[in-house]
């Protein structure tokens, strides 16, 4: 396919413009703007409390931004332009766009009353309304991708944390999203299990998935990401290609942060 044949392909997959988010009097995000293009893998780093998770949750509207814009493949998320005026979008409108965004959580958040396969099939069947057989094929394909096909009939509680997180990745992939968001996907795992989840994410990146990853894994950030965003106190303090931000940052704060976490 020639470049730009699809009108959406020229658009950034994620575009965030002057995003602000406050919880009561506390302003967590103080004007964030960036773009994520197809096949980018963007790592978001920063100290705890810098607003990383809130930013990621705003990108799929799990948190409602106080002001600013999020656009997914050019389509506004959470608001409509009605004769030039901005109005809140309906949940149905938001969900049409959310179908293009996969998310993986720190706590896995698998549904414990369903088997592994049912977890992965749930959204294809009930949201996309695919026939069960087709949804099953998609689910099996995604479970194979994270190497857990043999666990498909287990309950999530019987899996290790690493396996649960890989199921959560398969569950998000089953909606065939254009971008995957990872919110500290390995922070509640011990090092051994962290490695298997990072391996699954590395495979995804190699397959060309567009990804945004909030992480403390600097090794993964350097090795896999194309871009790194360093957040400090609700603002982007430094951003650029991964090598540049992680090895020779301009910002003093970013240098300090890296020296603390890299040691």
């Amino acid at each position, binding site marked *: 396919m020639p470049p730009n044949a699809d009108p959406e392909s020229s658009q950034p997959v994620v575009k965030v413009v002057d995003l602000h988010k406050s919880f009561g009097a506390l302003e967590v995000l103080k004007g964030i703007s960036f773009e994520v293009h197809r096949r980018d893998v963007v790592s978001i780093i920063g100290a705890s409390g810098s607003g990383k998770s809130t930013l990621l949750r705003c990108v799929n509207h799990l948190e409602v931004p106080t002001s600013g814009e999020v656009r997914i493949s050019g389509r506004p998320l959470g608001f409509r332009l009605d004769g030039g005026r901005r109005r809140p979008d309906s949940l149905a409108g938001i969900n049409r766009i959310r179908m293009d965004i996969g998310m993986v959580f720190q706590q896995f958040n698998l549904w414990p009353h369903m088997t592994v396969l049912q977890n992965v099939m749930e959204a294809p069947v009930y*949201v996309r309304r695919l026939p069960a057989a087709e949804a099953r094929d998609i689910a099996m394909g995604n479970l194979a991708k994270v190497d857990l096909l043999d666990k498909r009939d287990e309950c999530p509680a019987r899996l290790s944390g690493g396996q649960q997180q890989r199921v959560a990745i398969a569950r998000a992939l089953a909606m065939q999203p254009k971008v995957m968001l990872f919110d500290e996907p390995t922070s509640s795992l011990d090092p051994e299990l962290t490695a298997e989840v990072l391996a699954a994410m590395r495979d995804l990146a190699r397959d060309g998935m567009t990804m945004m990853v909030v992480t403390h894994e600097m090794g993964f950030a350097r090795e896999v990401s194309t871009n790194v965003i360093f957040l400090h106190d609700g603002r982007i303090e430094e951003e650029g290609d991964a090598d540049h931000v992680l090895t020779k940052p301009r910002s003093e704060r970013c240098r300090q942060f890296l020296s603390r976490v890299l040691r």
Partner: protein
Amino acid sequence: MPPPTTAGFDFESLRQVFDFSYFWSYREVLLSGLLVNFLVFGFAALLAAGSGFVVCLLRVSRSRAARGIGTFYVELFRNTPEYVFLTWVHFVLPLVLTRLLVTRVNFAPTLSAVLALGLCYSGYFAETFRTGILSIPRGHIDAGRAVAMGRALIMRRIILPQAIRRVLPEALNNSVSLFKATSIVSLIAVPDLMYNVVNVVQYEMRPLPLYSSAAFLFFAILFMLSALVQALTERWRTRAWG
């Protein structure tokens, strides 16, 4: 030698407490009364669980007005004694309805009993269900939102299947209490066990053995029901998902 004291322990009364023969000779009418207790219990439990569920949905609704109505309902019924509400439903509500509808309204005692106990306990059921719904971790819901599930779908597919299992023991305990409360319906002349016992007592003039037997019977039934609930609850606790 002082004469033997007559103010000793009254063994005769104690013997009568355990004399089931009167109860046994009237077993047919008395057990048909017990059947009425079960009937009132059954319909009241259905009403309580059904309207309790609806009110619980109001209580967890996003609309402030709906939540307000739900809270008012729950507080009203949880804080009105069953007996007071029973007499109100039976004697006052028909009058109110008669005025409002301009047609003569009368409730059969059994209908009043079902309505009153059902509504009274729906407040408890609503709170039990609400606890179950609120006990589902936020993350399970976020995961549903993230895959573009709507509110109704999240409720139906993620929250309720987990919440129902969590609240079953408590809901069964509510039901046992409801069965206990059916013992007051004789006060508005529902022909239940106590109503028939009172009639027999008036005819036989033997209150001691008859009332005692009725008490033993209620105790035995409720004790067995509670034990059953406990056993079921224990099994649910020890069994993980799957």
